[in-house]
């Protein structure tokens, strides 16, 4: 019987894992994050690669909107087309991550950008924000330097409307949120009943459970 119950819970664990896209604190949602390099087509002699931990490794194409794993914080690399072996890279992608890591750490032909990208993260489920798309610009690319800056971010809301927020001169604005993003104009709107109802029901639930636990403990002691 115990084995059957164990099996059931292991199976349910995997089923639940495959059904849900994420585990996050209740009342929160992930904002979809993408980015695009606006002027990548101006550098036809180079290949641009997005590389970071947790499987982020992608060749960037002109006009491509790129998404990466939420907990990855990748960098963009550039390499001259003449120095780049696509076949070898594709093989590396399929192989061990340490080999790929070594490729990015030791290849002298790769030029690493200073800009580390991060996802937007979580917001309250009442927040109307649905998506954040960064528009990046290559400011400088020479033999040793790759300077990429964040030009603007396009926020899309759940009702389909969108707005552009321009980053400051250095790629950073004065009012920031979520690790370097300009603050969206529209923020969380709580229905008036929400907070008090949440607070009260949560508190009552906890209190009831605690009372039941105390009753059980007292009964066990008396036995």
């Amino acid at each position, binding site marked *: 019987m115990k084995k059957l119950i164990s099996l059931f819970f292991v199976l349910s664990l995997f089923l639940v894992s495959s059904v849900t896209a994420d585990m996050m604190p209740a009342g929160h949602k992930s904002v979809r994050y993408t980015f695009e390099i606006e002027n990548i087509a101006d550098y036809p002699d180079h290949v641009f690669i997005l590389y970071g931990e947790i499987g982020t490794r992608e060749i960037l194409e002109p006009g491509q909107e790129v998404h990466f794993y939420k907990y990855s914080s990748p960098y963009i690399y550039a390499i001259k087309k003449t120095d780049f072996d696509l076949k070898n890279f594709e093989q590396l992608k399929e192989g061990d991550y340490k080999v790929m890591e070594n490729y990015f750490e030791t290849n002298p032909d790769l030029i690493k950008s200073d800009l580390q990208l991060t996802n937007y993260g979580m917001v309250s489920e009442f927040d109307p924000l649905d998506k954040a798309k960064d528009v990046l610009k290559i400011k400088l690319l020479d033999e040793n330097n790759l300077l990429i800056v964040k030009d603007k971010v396009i926020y899309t809301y759940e009702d389909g409307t969108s707005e552009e927020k321009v980053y400051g001169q250095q790629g950073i604005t004065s009012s920031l949120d979520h690790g370097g993003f300009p603050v969206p104009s529209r923020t969380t709107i709580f229905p008036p009943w929400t907070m008090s109802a*949440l607070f009260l029901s949560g508190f009552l639930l906890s209190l009831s459970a605690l009372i039941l636990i105390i009753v059980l*403990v007292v009964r066990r002691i008396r036995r």
Partner: protein
Amino acid sequence: MILTYLFCFILTFVLEFSIIFFLSKENWKELFLYVLLINLFTWPLANLAYYFGGNFYLIELNVILAEGLLLTLLLRKKYIYCLGLSFIANLVTALLSFLI
């Protein structure tokens, strides 16, 4: 919204119960009730604390300590053992959120 909360709670409960059951091999019916009650006590409070801007790690630490204490009282085992169970169960649920 209620469904989201319910789903999150069930997910947390199923995971914690599975882990504690695997590790402790206690009577599953009793353990089911205990873990359910313990989660019903800690989960809403933890979410409220998080909602009002509490530090995630501090909240998790409090949850681990509280669940360890309650397991000690209910299972009548040593606190350090129950603290270990609580620590592993909460650690796994937290780590899984990074993996999925």
